[in-house]
Every structure is written in C-alpha cells, then in structure tokens.
C-alpha cells in the first residue's frame, strides 16, 4: 500500500470504517466456543525451545547426572501436577521416594482412599459464568469489583471494560450476586462442565510419559547413550513438562470458577426541561 496515494488512503479509510462498523459476535458464539474448549483435548505444545544444544555441550558424566535428575524431578512434577498438591516440590519428592522405595505395595483399599483415586472416582466440574452489566460509572465499578475480588479470594484481570475473575468454585455464587448488584444486569449465564474424563486422560498421559522416560534412561545406563537417544530423552522431558502444564490447568479449572463481566456505560439520562 502506498501511504501517499490518495486512492489508497481512501480505500484504507473506507475499509477501516467497515471494520469499525462490524458488529460484535453474538454471545452464543462465545458459549459455543467455551463448550468446545472445555470438551476438546489440547494439542501437544512445546512451551520452550529445544535444549539439544546445551545437552551436547555438556561433558558425558554431567549429562548422565542431569538426565537422572531430570527423570526424577520430571516425574515428581508430573506427580504433583496430577495430584494438584499445593506442597512444595521438595516435599512431594520426599513423598514419592517413601512411597516407592520404603512402603509395601498399596492395597486396593489404600488406593481407593488416595487423592489420585478420589480424582478418578469423584466427578470434577468447572463452572463458567458471564454477566453483561450496564453501569453508571465504569472506573468506579472496577474499583468496587476489586473489592469483591479481594473478599472472594479471586484474581481479577481488567481490560478496559472487561473483567475476568477466577476464584475458588465455592465463592462463585457470592461473587456473581455482588457483581450483579453493581449495575443493571442485561444478561447472564452459568455453565457447568464435567472435567472427569479430561483429568483421567491427563493423568494417564503423564503416567505413560514418566514410564517412557524411566525406561529410556534405564536403556541409556545399560548400553551407553548416543546424542540421538539423549535428544529423545530431552523430547520426553519437554512432553512431560507440557503434560504437567495441562494437568495443572485442568486442576485449576476443576477447583476454580471463571466469571467474565462485560460492562457498558448506561446512557446518561436527560432531565426533562422544566415548564414543559
């Protein structure tokens, strides 16, 4: 496009005006999108760049030590991701060592009462709510919403006149009630999605990846490792990390609710002229 060409400038003005006049998507599109997102599994992601270069730069003994440490820590993080624990990594690592090496195999009854078993048997749900609110003063409403967010232990993101609050599931009703009192509710919705299948699938994926990493490390220890095998191990750890992020996100969804509030300023009311 030529910035100095008057015809191009006219085209740009005309197209920009068309874009500005385009309507916002209907709320039904958001509802359908949210349903698809909550139901569909996510694609495998690569959250950071490949570390193959630094692998090859390390001396062989250092690589062995690091590989062993990564398998242990990766497995630990994966365990924490599945179990949704809030304890520190060190504590979880300690728990794992005790469970694996010192204790006898778990009985069926013990398994049934473990947190992992609970996760498999109890339905896990996520709730998503939306409120379309007409308010008199948007900045003031945002301040009031911050106060509500603090009270309901919610984290709140603000962008212009959009608020997104994430809070413990038990606090959603109270938060919705308080937010709705800040203005005139034009529309609202509440949707519950069962995450049990997704959580189970995520746990199974983590477990399988951890086993693959351990098996590969055992082979490397027995037969010596080529750069290719080490890169395979590196890939596995990246996948474990991605699966762990998925698991944590799912856990967060299962224990927290999201409330999206869109605000619109009320049209100013015009006082009637006296004497008419």
């Amino acid at each position: 496009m030529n910035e100095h060409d008057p015809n191009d400038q006219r085209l740009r003005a005309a197209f920009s005006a068309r874009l500005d006049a385009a309507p916002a998507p209907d709320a039904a599109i958001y509802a359908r999108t949210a349903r698809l997102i909550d139901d569909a599994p996510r694609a495998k992601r690569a959250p950071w760049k490949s570390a193959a270069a630094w692998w090859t730069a390390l001396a062989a003994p250092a690589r062995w030590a690091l590989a062993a440490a990564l398998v242990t820590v990766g497995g630990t993080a994966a365990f924490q991701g599945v179990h949704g624990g809030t304890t520190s990594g060190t504590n979880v690592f300690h728990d794992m060592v005790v469970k694996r090496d010192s204790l006898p195999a778990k009985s069926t009854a013990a398994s049934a009462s473990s947190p992992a078993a609970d996760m498999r048997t109890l339905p896990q749900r996520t709730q998503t709510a939306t409120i379309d609110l007409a308010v008199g003063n948007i900045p003031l409403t945002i301040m009031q919403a911050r106060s509500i967010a603090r009270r309901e232990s919610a984290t709140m993101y603000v962008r212009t006149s959009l608020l997104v609050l994430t809070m413990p599931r038990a606090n959603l009703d109270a938060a919705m009630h308080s937010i709705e009192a800040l203005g005139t509710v034009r529309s609202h919705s509440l949707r519950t999605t069962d995450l049990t299948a997704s959580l189970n699938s995520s746990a199974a994926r983590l477990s399988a990846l951890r086993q693959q990493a351990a098996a590969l490390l055992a082979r490397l220890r027995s037969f010596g490792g080529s750069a290719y095998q080490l890169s395979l191990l590196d890939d596995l750890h990246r996948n474990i990390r991605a699966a762990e992020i998925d698991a944590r996100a799912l856990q967060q969804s299962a224990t927290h609710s999201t409330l999206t509030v869109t605000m619109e300023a009320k049209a100013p009311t015009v006082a009637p002229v006296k004497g008419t």
Partner: protein
Amino acid sequence: MVGRRTEGSTDADDRHLLGRIAAGDRAAFDIFYHAYARRVLAYVRDIVHGADLAEEVAGDVMVAVWKSAGRYAGRARVLSWVLGIAHHKTLDALRRRGVAFAPLDDGMPADDAADAPGAALIALEERALLEDALRSLSVEHRAVLQLMYAFGCSQSEIAEIVACPVATVKTRVFYAKRRLRDQLERMHAAQGLA
C-alpha cells in the same frame, strides 16, 4: 460492543496473553477472545458472505487459538497469526461446501502504471456501493484487500497469512483493485443512467 472496547491492546500484551493461554489460563483466553473475536468475525464474514457460516468459522478460529497457542513462534504479529488461522479455516469451510475461489489471474504480471483505482473510488464513502462492489470480487481478492486496507497488513504479512509468495500477493492486490474500480465505475454509470 465488547470486542471493540477491548481491542486497544499492544502486540506485546497479546503475546503475553498467548503465553498464558498456552499454559491453560482460561481467564487469559477470555480476554483474548473479547479482544479478537469481533475482528475475526468481520474478516470471515466478508469472505464467506453468510452470517451462520461466518459465526461457526469464527468460533472454530478461537478454539484453534486455544488449542495451538503454544505453537505461536513469535515471528509474526499476533493479529497476523490469528488472521492466518481465520483465513485457512474459512477456505476449509468454503471447500467443504464446494465453493470455487481461486482467482484466474494469479500468474499474470502486475503493471504498476495501471495500479490507480480511478475516479470511481471518490465515492467510496457510499458504503453500500462498496459492499456491492466487493461482493463481485473473488474470495482471494476480497481477502487481500481486506487484509491490506482494513487490518493494515504489509504484503509480506499477507503472504504469510494466505500462504503464497509475495509476488502473488502483489498480483492479487493489483487485480483486486482494478476489478473493484471497474465494478464501481459500472455501478456509478448505472446510477447515472437511472
């Protein structure tokens, strides 16, 4: 008009949001949705000319953003990346419905001297006229014009979005503008006769 109110974000903000979406942050996705959904819908609606199909495709685009945010490599602007997804989803939807959309003149060289849209564009303020004229263009021609003039994409960005060489983009822009001009002139002539 929630979408418009939240569209004033910077590319850096949106990259940060994509990072959070890649980590599974639903709140970040909601912000991203409200920032981009209107523009995505506007783009798709112009290409497919059908409100129901456009809404379905726009929803699919946002789902694709959620699923593949981790694949965003950071080379392009976030808007270009999203429009790239929108473009391919739109063409897929049209293919499924058997709509032919490839322009016939992609291989022909563009003549810079003939690039002036002409006097008919003076009346572009008449939006209804522009809408009708655009409807007469092919899908690919509508796409390049919209990407260039509505979204301010450069030719290399458009090439990335529509997955074709920059030279092809130049040719498409050239012919799209010429057809738009011819159509507008025809419409003006028809109005003059009426």
